[in-house]
């Protein structure tokens, strides 16, 4: 049985499950492997038994005599108690693991994660903001989850953990990745138009690389204006709705080669795509609605969330897209 489980586990991690990057993910897979084996055996008994009986007791003549068996207490107790024992066993096993998942380690690296339609923002203690989560390997990491609008859910398949990010309260999850690399982060609580686009990467890097990354990110302030703008364009998740390298429309209008051009609003009025138009569109997205796009605009307002210098940097970057 143990060998079978080990085999199941190995097979799963490769083909039927995402890679196992944490200790917890291995343990979850062990339990899942056990359940798969037990389930397989139960299905063999049930479905195999069914097939055996229907073949063996196939109707021969219209007047077949059948056995008159109303019940058998011993059997009935047996097939009530055995499943119950198995259920309680996996329940207890699950409980132990669940407890580990929910008990936050002390001295963990804390990162705040905020969900917003339709992007994640990670905020580090030193003020660095990023749309991808970068963490050091072999270190306890605690993510404190919040949401600005609706419920989202932060899910890292390779770690076998997820937790809802509920507006108006904080929730948390933790992990300790033993593997370097990039892992998918999905939003698993339905959150509207681009729910399926609310995907980001979790990068596990060495401690040195992590330290280096943190410093580099915090030095963004010294970069040239347009490069800073490019950064913000990523971290504020503008890129999830606006194309910058082709005229193709994502959710919002493409910004590629738009600068200085004329445009028309849904109400027929005209505008020039200049500093003030971009500024107003960022701060008050509903003020001017470009014709041919949904009304009201699905774009969130960034009023009060961007400093003047951040705004200028963004505008400088958009200017440079021509």
């Amino acid at each position, binding site marked *: 049985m143990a060998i079978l489980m080990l085999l199941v586990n190995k097979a799963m991690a490769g083909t039927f499950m995402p890679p196992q990057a944490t200790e917890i993910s291995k343990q979850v897979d062990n339990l899942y492997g056990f359940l798969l084996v037990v389930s397989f055996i139960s299905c063999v008994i049930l479905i195999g038994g069914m097939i055996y009986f229907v073949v063996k007791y196939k109707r021969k003549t219209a007047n077949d005599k059948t056995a008159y068996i109303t019940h058998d207490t011993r059997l009935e107790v047996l097939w009530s108690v055995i499943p119950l024992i198995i259920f309680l066993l996996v*329940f207890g096993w699950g409980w132990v693991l*669940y407890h580990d998942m929910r008990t936050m380690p002390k001295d963990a690296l804390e990162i705040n994660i905020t969900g917003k339609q339709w992007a994640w923002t990670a905020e580090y203690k030193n003020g660095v903001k990023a749309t991808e989560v970068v963490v050091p390997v072999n270190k306890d990491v605690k993510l404190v989850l919040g949401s600005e609008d609706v419920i989202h859910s932060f*899910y890292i398949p390779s770690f076998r*953990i997820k937790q809802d990010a509920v507006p108006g309260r904080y929730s948390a999850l933790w992990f300790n990745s033993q593997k370097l690399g990039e892992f998918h982060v999905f939003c698993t609580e339905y959150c509207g138009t681009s729910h399926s686009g609310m995907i980001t990467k979790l990068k596990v890097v060495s401690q040195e690389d992590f330290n280096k990354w943190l410093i580099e990110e915090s030095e963004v302030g010294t970069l040239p204006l347009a490069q800073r703008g490019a950064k913000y364009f990523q971290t504020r998740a503008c890129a999830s709705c606006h194309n910058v390298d082709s005229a*193709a429309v994502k959710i919002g209008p493409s910004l590629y080669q738009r600068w200085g051009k004329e445009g028309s609003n849904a109400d027929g009025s005209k505008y020039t795509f200049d500093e003030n138009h971009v500024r107003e569109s960022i701060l008050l997205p509903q003020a001017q609605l470009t014709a041919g796009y949904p009304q009201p605009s699905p774009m969130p307002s960034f009023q009060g969330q961007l400093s003047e210098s951040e705004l200028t940097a963004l505008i400088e970057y958009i200017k440079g897209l021509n």
Partner: protein
Amino acid sequence: MGHHSSGKNYINEEPGLLSWFTSLDHKRIAILYFVSVMTFFLVGGIMALLLRLELFAPNTTANVGQVLKNGDVYNQVLTYHGAIMVFMVIIPGIPAILGNFFLPLQIGAKDVAFPRLNLASWYVLMLGATLAILTFFNSKIDTGWTFYTPYSIRTGSSVVMMVVAAFIMGMSSILTGLNFIVTVHKLRAPGMSMFRMPLFTWAIYSTAILQVLATPVLGITLLLLVMERTFGVGIFDPKLGGDPVLFQHFFWFYSHPAVYIMILPAMGVVSELITTYSKKTIFGYTAIAYSSIGIAAVSFFVWGHHMFVSGQSEVAGIIFSFLTMLVGVPTAIKMFNWLATLYKGSIQFSAPMLFALGFLFLFAIGGVTGIMLAVTAIDVHFHDTYFVVAHFHYVMVGGTLMAIMGGFFHWFPKMFGKMYNETTAIASWVFIFIGFNVTFFPQFILGAKGMPRRYFDYVLEYEQLNKISTMGSWLITIGFLIGLYTIIRGLTSGAKAPDNPWGAKTLEWQTSSPPIMHNFDHDPVVTAGPYEYK
């Protein structure tokens, strides 16, 4: 009992199409439900096909692999698929069609306790359904069938109208349940004690209790949601000091029992089919009857297993996981009892029996994966992934829809007085059964690999399995089309059905096919249990 010399029956007694809409006869009302629910099923099914087509390929660049215009359209189709299938197909499905028709017949009653209320329930359902369909032309809703807050408060679609529609359809469900409870309590024929009732009736009875006790809570939940949306009172909206997770508690307090409203009747149908086509008394009658009630009772205390990662406390998660395990036991009991019924039987491979065996097969898989999902630590990984989608389709479609089809063919001769074509019915089963597994089994693997549900688009590594799944949906479609063809052919040119073509023992087979208006020529007197194949 037996042949009615005048040739009059419930179908031809009152002439004219219009008479169907005013008839108080439970059999005619069942037919009204049948036509309307099947229409809804067609609509919901087309939506499902569209969803699968969209997911056939990832949307690599702007328009490749895209069948639906954008994420919004996908979300709308998804919402209507879920809402239609849950509120308008599976919940009313077996109770309102087969239950209406056969519950009174099986207990030897002339009708349900409140025939007027019965007809009114149908009109109430139609009113709700009309409203629900009207939202489609107003502004399409995109909340998912669960209406989770605060998304449902924010989204600019006609949520209020849809929620009112669900409220009204809930009322229809309550009234039907109420009618059946009183019918079972008061209208059983002489000698028909509770423990002589057929297991289908037992299942409908347990379901009716759930309908009456759970649905009012859905009503008030939806009402509070309407309040929140129109007045912004701050019950569910965190911006106003409300608690969005409270909505989930309220919602699942109803919707989990509702899951059993969907599956218990199917289990009842399967009990009938297995004993009839094995020509053998059911094994463990009392255990099956009690397990229906047991499932109904425990189902009120397991709602939190939908919320293991919602932020509810660890203790709550553990308790709900434990109670969910307890529901597994009566379900396992039923499975083993059906299996034991086959033992030393005389098994006939007719279409209804194949559907029942298909039910056992699919429900076994749906059941064991259900246990996996009940384990807290595993559910954290599987929650809201395609694993869950696969699981509940195995139970709801593989379970309930297989039972509807099986039950329908089983009782077809009784309902319409004509035989269906066995060959095409079996062909329909083959396509549905294989297609179903091709569609939904890959979804277990997709979920285990981490693909979240309600995704308009997905990362490349999920492509192969999605392709297989979509192709499976075409097989299911073919299966249902053959089924539809079988029904239409049966209705138009089926051979005349004898009163009891399957040699079944329950009371409905003692009257003529189709039954006369008052069900029985002479009031039946019951002297034995329902499955005395001696």
